[in-house]
């Protein structure tokens, strides 16, 4: 865990690139931010510590994208959902590893960590997605 790393979106994706899902816990009020933020939107503190977030959760809603942005067109149709992680935090993401018609609200999913190509232009972020446990 990068103790002195800034609590930013950039750092969130650096962690994803290392296969880690980390949020920032506000030391003053205890709120856990996923993604991390450098300013607590609850108590305005700037003091955080990194906390590991369990990378499994359940699907709370989803859609199947048929008309996709250009960089995703080769994948369409693909499913996108909102996943509630074990401790109530949520992330949006692609749902892979099963045909869209088998996707069900409430199903258990795990996060799959992508990596970022070194020569990629801004933003130099990897992508993550979710698949059945």
């Amino acid at each position, binding site marked *: 865990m990068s103790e002195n790393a800034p609590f930013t979106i950039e750092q969130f994706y650096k962690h994803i690139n290392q296969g880690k899902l980390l949020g920032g816990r506000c030391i003053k009020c205890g709120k856990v931010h996923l993604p991390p933020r450098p300013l607590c939107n609850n108590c305005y503190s700037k003091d955080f510590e990194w906390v590991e977030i369990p990378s499994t959760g359940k699907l709370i809603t989803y859609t199947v994208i048929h008309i996709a*942005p250009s960089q995703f067109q080769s994948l369409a149709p693909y499913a996108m959902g909102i996943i509630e992680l074990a401790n109530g935090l949520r992330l949006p993401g692609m749902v892979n590893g099963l045909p869209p018609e088998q996707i069900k609200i409430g199903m258990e999913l795990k996060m799959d960590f992508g990596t970022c190509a070194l020569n990629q232009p801004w933003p130099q972020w990897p992508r993550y997605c979710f698949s059945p446990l």
Partner: protein
Amino acid sequence: MKGKPLVSIVSVGLSKFGKLEGLYAREIFAEAAKEAFDRCPKLDPKKDIQALYVGHMGESYEHQGHTGATMADWIGLGHVPATRTEAACASSGAALRAAICAVRSGLSDVVMVGGVEKMTHRPTAEVTEYLAMASDYPFEQWNGMTFPGLYALMATAHMHEYGTTERQLAMIAVKNHYHGSLNPKAHMQKEITLETALSSRVVAWPLKLYDCSLITDGASCIILTTPELARKFTDTPIDIVGSGQAGDTIGLYERKSLTSITAAKVAAQKAYEMAQVNPGDIDVAEVHDCFTIAELIAYEDLAFCKPGQGGSLIEKGETKLGGRIPVNTSGGLKAKGHPVGATGTAQAYEIYLQLTGQADKRQVKDAEIGLTHNVGGSGATATVHIYRRA
């Protein structure tokens, strides 16, 4: 302030909505402004208008930012302070709110507020990309989300929680196309069948092509003044008696509710309270139907029915012309069209026509109180305004 007029509308203008080939945004805005000037001969635009607010979402379409000054220039407002507001699809709803504040502050007696977007000259893929900028980039867009996809997430959640059906959503499209067929300025003026809507291609399941609003060119504007000065300019002013604006997280995934747009609910509560009006008092409403599910959720957020009852409200025909609370008599974003920045004040235009008895074939009989509901992005901004015959 409760129950008292905040400001009065003395004139309104709307360009034709549609594919306006060969026209630049500023030229379309000039068309809307000309109508507003012609409607109000007692107003001298150059002498009387003291500020301009313009809603505009995207400079990418025409390589043109600095929209406030550009529009003021093309409508001959010279040195008048002109400011652009941007709040995605609620850009001119936010402009309206800013204009009301400008009049109420006492700094400006007469203010013009409008909105504009020129979109159809760009390929659909590019427009889709520009529109997606209204949503969160690093988590939603980066990982493959689209703008219809976000509303589809709400639709799936609503269907799961309340049993809302794709058929009910399609009924909203059919209704709004019927209303659009009565509006000579609408982008699409033809009716569609339920089967056409239900069998159209899937965009982001459960939303299909006919669940989505149109990519449209257009501009709208209204002219506001104090209630005291209004009669100097017109015998039929329309008062704005309630104004609410609220925000929420930029990411849909962080919101507590996925079956309601909380910002719209909060904005509506503020507007109702300010106006001292109940949801049941509204005679006609223009709501933000960027997708059919958005109109259904609006019924619930505006308390036209209870949460979960939106599907049954459309099934019973209560929101159709002739129903208990006609919604989107203009055709809405679905059929009139959705030139993003123009939408908020285009809604106010329709309500003005309705409350002054000028809505022709789509006139709601004796309409006295109207409401507009304008949502930005997936709901990180919402504005609600309430209007009353003066």
